[in-house]
C-alpha cells in the first residue's frame, strides 16, 4: 500500500463527509464549513492521484490547481459569510423593526 493510495482513499472519505455536512446540516455556517471540507478533500484527491506510480518528479500542474482552488474557496467563503450575516441582520430587522439596524 503506497502513500498516495492511503491519501486518496481518505480524501474520498473527507469529501463524502463534507458533502453530507453541506446537505444534511440545517445551520448555514455548517454548510459553509462542509463546502470548504469538500473542496479540501478534492484537492487532496487530485494531488494524491498525481503522485501515482511512475511519478518521479513533482507534478506542478496538480499543485497549481489545488493552490488556485484554495484561494478561490476563500473568496467564495468570504462572500457566503457576508451573505449569511446580512441575511440574519435583515431577518432580524424584519421581525423586530424597533431594533436598530445592526
Amino acid at each position: 500500500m503506497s502513500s498516495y493510495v492511503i491519501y486518496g482513499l481518505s480524501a474520498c472519505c473527507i469529501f463524502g463527509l463534507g458533502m453530507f455536512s453541506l446537505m444534511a446540516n440545517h445551520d448555514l455556517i455548517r454548510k459553509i464549513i462542509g463546502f470548504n471540507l469538500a473542496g479540501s478533500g478534492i484537492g487532496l484527491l487530485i494531488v494524491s492521484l498525481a503522485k501515482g506510480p511512475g511519478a518521479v518528479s513533482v507534478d506542478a500542474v496538480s499543485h497549481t490547481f489545488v493552490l488556485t482552488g484554495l484561494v478561490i474557496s476563500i473568496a467564495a467563503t468570504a462572500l457566503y459569510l457576508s451573505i449569511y450575516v446580512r441575511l440574519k441582520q435583515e431577518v432580524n430587522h424584519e421581525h423586530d423593526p424597533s431594533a436598530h439596524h445592526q
Partner: protein
Amino acid sequence: MDYLSLGIDLLLTGILVTIAFFIVVAKDNLSAIILFIAYGLMMGLAWVRLSAPDIAIAEIALGAGVTGAMLIHAFAQVTGGLDHVKIAFDQFELPRLARAWLSVCCALVVIGLMLTVLLMFKHNHSLVDVVNAQMPNSPVKNPVTAVLLNFRGFDTLMEMAVLFCALCGTLILTDAHVPKTHHERPLLRLLALVLAPPMILFSGYLVWVGADSPGGAFQAGALLASAAVLLFIAGFIKRPEKITMPYKVFSIIGLGCFIGMGAFLAMSEEVFLKYSSDGALQMLLIELGSMVSIGTILFLLLLLGKSKQFDSMS
C-alpha cells in the same frame, strides 16, 4: 516502502478523517469552527507528506488561518444579538429517515470514488512530462511558480479577478461601523509590535524565494494579511469607515500589474503575457503587485462583516 512512513501516513489520515467526522457531528457551531481550524493544520502536514510544500504553506495560512478567522468573525457577529433570529431554513431539520438515506447516498458516492482511486492510479494522465520538457525555457526554477505565472498565467490572472469580485461583493453586502469603545490591551500591543515587522519582512522573503524554492505571491499575501489583522486587533490600524483611496489602489494593483504587464508584453512580444528574456524580473513585478493586492483584499474581507455590537465588545 518502510513501516515508519506507512505508520505516519496511516496516523495522519486517521486523524484527518476523524476530525472531519467530528466536524460533521459537532453539537454547536463554535466546536465545528475550531475543529475546522485544527483540520486545516493537519492538512498542512498531509501536504508536506505528499511533497507539496507550497500548498502546505498556503493551506495553513489561508485554509486554517484566514478561513478560520472569517468563520469566527461571522459566528461572533451572529451570536450575541442575532442568536435568536431564525431564518426559514434554520428550522427545517431533516427527518431521521431522510438523514439516513442521505448518508447512504453519500457513502455510495464515497465508495465509488474509492474504487476510482484504486483503479485509476495505474495510469498517469498528468501533464508532468509536458511541464518538465518546458522547464529549461522558464526563467524560474520552482515548477509550481513556473506553472502559476508562466505556463498557466491566465488562470492566475482570473484568480486575481475572482478575489477582487469577492471583495466587491462583500463591500456591497456589509457595512463598516465605527467602534464605540476601544479597550486597551498592552500584551496584545506588545505581541503585535514584536511579531508584525518580521511577518512583513518574511512575506517579502517568500515572494523573492518563490522563484527557486517553495514560496510565492499567494503565501506572501496571506502572511501580509495576517500581519495586518494582528495590527488591527492590537489597535494600530484603525477600522476603515469608508474605503479610502489607498485601500482601493492596493486592492486593484495586483490585477492591474498583471494586465498591465500582459499588455506591455503584447506590445513588445506580440503575444499577451509572453515573457521576454527579462522574464524573471517581469514575473517578480507581477508577483509583488499580487502580494500587496492579496494582502489588502484578504484583510478587507476579514474586517468587513463586523457589526457595531461586536466592536463594542472587543
